[in-house]
């Protein structure tokens, strides 16, 4: 079984996501960064860019307008003022 962690995406007007996920790749201040389960506690600012979230079966992408990401105790919360789901480009 794959190891997962809880991930929430919140904006001032809604909760965009609250799921157990396998991994994500976020546009961090110092370049894109990947987060897997049991990541060390982290507080990072985010840039405008594309966030990719992988669960067991699915993969979703979001366009985010900066924000902040907190990872601690095998859960993560992403706060951004604008988040919009995008359909990933076909490969």
């Amino acid at each position, binding site marked *: 079984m794959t190891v997962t962690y809880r991930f929430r995406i919140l904006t*001032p*007007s809604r*909760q965009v996501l609250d799921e157990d996920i396998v991994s994500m790749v976020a546009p961090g201040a110092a370049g894109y960064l990947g987060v897997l389960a049991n990541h060390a506690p982290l507080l990072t*600012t985010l840039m405008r860019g594309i966030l990719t979230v992988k669960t067991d079966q699915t993969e979703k992408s979001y366009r985010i307008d900066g924000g902040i990401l907190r990872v*601690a105790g095998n859960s993560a919360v992403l706060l951004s003022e*604008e988040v919009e789901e995008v359909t990933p480009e076909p490969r």
Partner: protein
Amino acid sequence: MPSLLDIRARIKAVENIKKITRAMQLVAAAKFNRAQNRARSARPYARELDEILGVLAAISEDEFDTGAGSDVLDLSFVEGETPLRVHRAGLFEQSEVKRPGVILVTADRGLAGAFNTRLIRAADRFIRDHPQMDSRLITIGKKGNAYFKRRDVSIIHHVEGLSDRLQLDELKRVTQTLVGLFASGEVDGLYLIYSQFKSAMRSDVTIEKFLSIPPVHKKDDERKSVYILEPDREAVYETLIPLYATTKIFATMADSFASEYGARMVAMQLATSNAEEMLESQIILRNRMRQAMITKELAEIVGGSAAQVS
């Protein structure tokens, strides 16, 4: 004694008023539902921001003492505008406030029961209760402004016509102006007086400190877990503080609108049922008077014919 015609006119008038209050009630109810949802969904985000601020405060605490708290932060609210420059320590310092800016959030419109009055009274009391402070007022919403304009209080800023759809861009500008008053030293503390939304029947007038940021609940257990800060502490603060301030204003407006519509809905419901009650009593009065007239006419006819027979 009003004539039958007077009563009929009055019934007509009350019927019309009832139609109006009923319509206002329905409009307020529709708006209330939307505003209530907005107020509810703004909360998790705000709570999470508080939490992060608490974490950051806990891990910065040791460094505060060593003078590292004198970071200069450039806070950017609206893209393309000059950022506001503040000292981080100044944002958190709990020193005595001498020139508070009181942000009074009322509605632009009335007919919402005691909604505006309660807020205005709270602001009035706040200013009177702190005579040693040189209070300045910032009004959001026409009603509070209209009241204090005629009084001996200096209003340093006024905003009206904010959309109940809570446009983020609009609110960011308001937040920038408010934080700007603090950053420039025009005020040395900011307080929010607004209506905190509980339910349609209930909202509480709340006075809250907005700046400097009140002591946050420090997550002491978090201090042991060593956080990685990226890119660095200063940058995290520079992102976090504008988010925090904007969210505070966002949540305040969300609460205020939900409370306002709730109050208007209840007030109009009451007005409608009052109109119904009045209508009922006037109709009874009208029927009684009409019956009295008929009885009188009958008595006259009977009396007249009796006079002729004898």
